[in-house]
């Protein structure tokens, strides 16, 4: 049912969550919804609700306070779902690397599918990231592996990009 699968990936609904960013990346995510970038032409709608979402656009480093909330939101999203980490902070916590109150990148808490670099990431880059995410989503839809809630969790063994030590 290739036709059916093609139709199924035409309506990616977004959940945007800020895990503690400086709001730089948030503004760029919101810019996607403005007439200039208008992601609704791809069927994307910001649903602001994990239970309706397919693609999680996450910004900012995971602070210790937001860790549980991020996990809850991820678990509440029904599969198949895709996670996009927007910005350097979300990738590995870069400007806030090793801060006392910061856990690190998003992938310290939940599995990430697409990383969008940049501080702040450009809206064009986010669109590219989301397009990539949609192709990943397509694979997941085709494989139809139900992502159970148990799969989510701290993945210590997962490879994380090590940020370079700051040179004095």
């Amino acid at each position, binding site marked *: 049912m290739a036709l*059916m699968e093609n*139709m*199924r*990936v*035409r*309506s990616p*609904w977004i959940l945007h969550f800020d895990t503690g960013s400086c709001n730089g990346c948030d503004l760029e995510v919101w810019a996607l919804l403005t*007439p200039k970038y*208008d992601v*609704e*032409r*791809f*069927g994307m709608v910001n*649903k*602001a*609700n994990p*239970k*309706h979402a*397919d693609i999680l656009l996450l910004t900012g480093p995971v602070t210790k306070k937001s860790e549980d909330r991020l996990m809850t939101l991820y678990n509440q999203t*029904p*599969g*198949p779902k895709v996670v996009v980490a927007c910005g350097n902070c979300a990738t590995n916590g870069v400007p806030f690397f090793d801060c006392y109150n910061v856990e690190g990148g998003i992938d310290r808490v939940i599995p990430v599918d697409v990383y969008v670099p940049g501080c702040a990431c450009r809206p064009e880059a986010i669109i590219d990231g989301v397009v990539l995410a949609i192709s990943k989503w397509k694979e997941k*839809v085709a494989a139809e592996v*139900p*992502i159970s809630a148990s799969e989510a969790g701290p993945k210590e063994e997962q490879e994380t990009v090590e940020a370079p030590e700051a040179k004095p």
Partner: protein
Amino acid sequence: MSDLELMVLTILVGILTPFAIGLLIGIDRKITARMQNRVGPPVLQPYYDLIKLFGKERRAMNSSQTVFAIACMFLQLAAFVLLVTGGDLLVVFFVSSTGSFSLALGAFSAHSPFSYFGAQRELLQILAYEPIVFMVIVAIGFRERTFLAGSVAHDLLFVLPLALIALLPVLVIKMEKSPYDIATAHTELISGPYVEYSGTYLAITKIAHWFDLAILFGIMTLFFWDQNIWISIGIKLLIILAFFFTAIVIDNTTARLTRNRMVKFTLAFGLALTAGNMLILFLADQGVFRWP
């Protein structure tokens, strides 16, 4: 037109209408996007959404929530079938509003403040529009001396124009459009009564909503009738499209009002118009003056 042809037409209308409503919602999203200087999603977007939702992982908060969602869909479906086959308008009205109530009950069954707020606001909306729909049906019955949808065979458009106009705020509320998107307020309640539904069950509530709209449009089409079936269908479609477009314009030019103002305005406006129309009709019947 023979009975067989009429039956085929009825079945055709019954099957095609839900699809047409999906298409209308797609057109609505496109027009709204164009009004906001955007490109907008494809016209078939509501179908893509629906197909995707059916493919999502099945999850529910509790079993009563799913039961209420399914009940809501079947009640609206029953009401719609009753209307298409020319059944009693009052029964259509009661069955359909039971469907609306079961959506609110489904939202109440989940222990979530957003869902709870959404359900309470849904009840408030029901309080605002149901009396008007009821009065319009009573007005139709008053004029036609019957409540059977199949027996309405006069031009109500020229006799009950005010009652038809009273259905406009009802349409705006049912289409979940501003200024009356009180329950699904997407800026603070996210999607109100739908907030705790996901995947398949969300899709079921969406289908129920499509049938709900179809019933309202069906009541609007009762206002025109002609000997020639094609003229009849054409004008009926025109009425629907005119109301639909007006609702979109209202949506894009207004901000959301408070729930109190919704109840006060819709009730005052709708009931005054329908009651006034019935009064005019009554006086005309008494021979006080001529009314077309």
